[in-house]
């Protein structure tokens, strides 16, 4: 009798926990495809519904495959001073950078200033803020267009003296 009692307890438990694990979590749409280094492309590129389980298993929402230490390092694997690193940084921080640009200041602008080798982050912030609408027209625009436009602005605005993206 004791045993039967525990069997029922365990059965009820098993259904309950399975349900709890199934519900919740997030679902991606795959809209971004594999383009650029944007968060959307990393998180939701080819995974669609599996993203939920991915999130639940890997301790991370954004996929791991493209960031092996020794193999297959994607172009998004590094953000360093220079053109390529600046592009990766802009694409990977698109949403955060847009917000900082609208505010004219912030951590992503400070970092962008260093990566592009510009002189002064206050000046960079002021330029991005002033040109905001042209540079960040909204999420509907491909992330490479955004990085292209931002880099173009930094290069042409000679007062910024962004030496690393020549």
């Amino acid at each position, binding site marked *: *009798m004791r045993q*039967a*009692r*525990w069997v*029922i*307890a365990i*059965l*009820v*438990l098993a259904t*309950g*926990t*399975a349900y709890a*694990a*199934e519900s919740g979590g997030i*679902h991606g*749409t795959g*809209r971004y495809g594999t383009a650029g280094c944007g*968060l*959307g492309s990393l998180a*939701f590129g080819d995974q669609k519904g*599996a993203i*939920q*389980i*991915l999130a*639940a*298993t*890997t*301790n*991370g*929402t954004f996929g*791991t495959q493209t*960031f092996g*230490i*020794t*193999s297959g390092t994607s172009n*998004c*694997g*590094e*953000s360093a001073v220079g053109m390529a*690193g600046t592009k990766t*940084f802009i694409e*990977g921080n698109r*949403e955060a950078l847009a917000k900082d640009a*609208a*505010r*004219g*200041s*912030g*951590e992503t602008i400070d*970092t962008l200033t*260093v*990566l592009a080798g510009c002189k002064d982050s206050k000046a960079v912030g002021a330029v991005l803020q*002033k040109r*905001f*609408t042209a540079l*960040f*027209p*909204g*999420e*509907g625009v491909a992330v490479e267009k955004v990085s292209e436009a931002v880099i173009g602005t930094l290069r042409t605005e000679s007062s910024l003296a962004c030496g690393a993206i020549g």
Partner: protein
Amino acid sequence: MKHRRFPFAFLCSALALASVRGEACAADTVPPLGPEAEDPYLSELIAAARAQGLGHDKAWLRLGRWRPRLLGGYESEADGADFFLAHDGKKDPAAELEAMLRGLFAPEPVAPADVRADHPQCRFPARFAYLARRLGLDQARIPLRSCPRFADFWRRVSGRSVALVFSSYYLNNPSSAFGHTFLRLGKSDLGTPGERFELVDQGVDYAATPDTSNAVLYAFKGLTGLFRGEFTARPYFYKVREYADYESRDMWEYELALQPDELAMLIGHLWELGQTWFDYYYATENCSYHVLGALEAVAPRLELLSHVGKVTLPADTVKALFANPGLVRAVRFRPSGRTQLQARASGLTGSELERVTELADGGEPEAFSRAPEAERVRLLDTALDLVDVRHGRAIIEGSDPAADALRQRLLERRSAILVASEPLAIAPPRSGGPERGHGSMRLGVGAGASSADGPLVVLDGRLALHDLVDPPAGFSPQTQLEFLKFRAALLPRSRTIRLDEATLFQATSLNGFGRLERRVSWKARAGAIRVVDAGCPGCVAGGFEVGGGPAVLARGGALAAAVTADAELLGAPDLRGMAGGPLRPGVGPGGLVRVLVGDRVALLGTASWRWLPLASPRTTFQLGAIARLHLGAVSLAAEWRRSPIAQEGVLSLQVFAR
């Protein structure tokens, strides 16, 4: 990079310059090509290694993750065969050491296709550096090889510092509920001295690679080591965007005081780890375990894994750092998106907050465009943070065009005011980081009386982690997360043992239902519990319970009150459940009030009422109150419970341990 032959920068740093004999670190000395068949120097080195017993040296064992086996001998935790050069390297550290020494003299591979075909000097730079140091390798007598792949990684990392990062408890994701830890390799040579650009650092973490989308299979595989765990490296900004923005988790960064040679060894060792995989065990050999294992391997002076229990909780790994005096050089706090929103909102008046929510709802507050510039900046900045906290996920996923449009409108309005926002300075929370948290295991013993059973001796305990009235330091005051909790009472009068509770897990997430965010609080519990009404007095029933509803929080969460709509299901053979069967569903309201007075005193009151359709009895209820006085690792607790068939009170002593 000019170091095409071998990353001399690495070898020199790893050896801390002095210990290489010969042309120490003058690079570019081209050594003669060594013959492959048993170079006399190789024989010399093998003899020296044997004489020193290096094959079972602590540092060597750590580099290869060899652990003593229960029945003698060793076995490495690394499961990828590529991690070993010797045929039986997984189980024979001494054989692997000799294979590595032989490997150092191996001929230059012809156009290696991938890292596995690279020269052993390049594949295992940390092992190479270890042997170079311990055997005092003579550079002139070993043909040094060029390692373009490793040199590229070395340059990509440009490591100048290392921090262990703890991203906070995240109840919405089962695998992150206990938090997550990983490494940040800092490039501090950017910009001017003193400035920090952490976003371009490299984040290195160890995580499972799942191969199933079935939840039950996932749980099973995660717990039994059937997933592969691998190390990955990516720019730190991806981690910040993921944890701080996307999941709104605060991050704690513990900057480690590693010596320059230890840091170089770490980078070389991570390169080695990147070539293998481990069976991933969610509870034991998880992210935190392997991160500590990597640190221990490159700094044998540290004792880290011996400070965590069999179950490796991320918070315990932070405590393990502090168990090595001087290891943590600095602690930094990176506020999540929600914490930033709260900081901005805390400076606003009630009417300003109203206008913020109006903006974030897409409306136009009255006379907004005529408000002073500074005020408009303040309100728009807060509204933007609010929109991101509310819709950030959907915007990144691209699933909510209306939210995109709303955010874009606010961004454009904000950018039209050509004033830069002041940086937001946010102090770390008063409750502190995970290092201040109590031990996750709790054991209690107490005595009391029950109106039905007479005197009681109560034993209770819990494996992990925290409830709403445990010592608040180091934890979120809004979260309960408990695994494997039990409570039993010895009844002297009837000389029996009464099982009160055997809970598998119990979680509560209290979220303020306020002006800015209308987030629902929720709770869930699964396990066995004693039935305390006429349905089956004294039966132990298995079951689960869920509930959700609004909560009010004040004083940073120290005061909390919640009302929930609950549903539960109990099952026991003798239960007079639905239509007389063994299953008894119930629904009804629940509520709780919790008060924290400083770090010492915690009070909790709970109440629930249930309607039990087609069961006998038709309704039931429970009331409870707990008061705890926290005195370091020990707490005094007073508890009172009332149910339809009894009421009881218990005084107990609670002890917290790792």
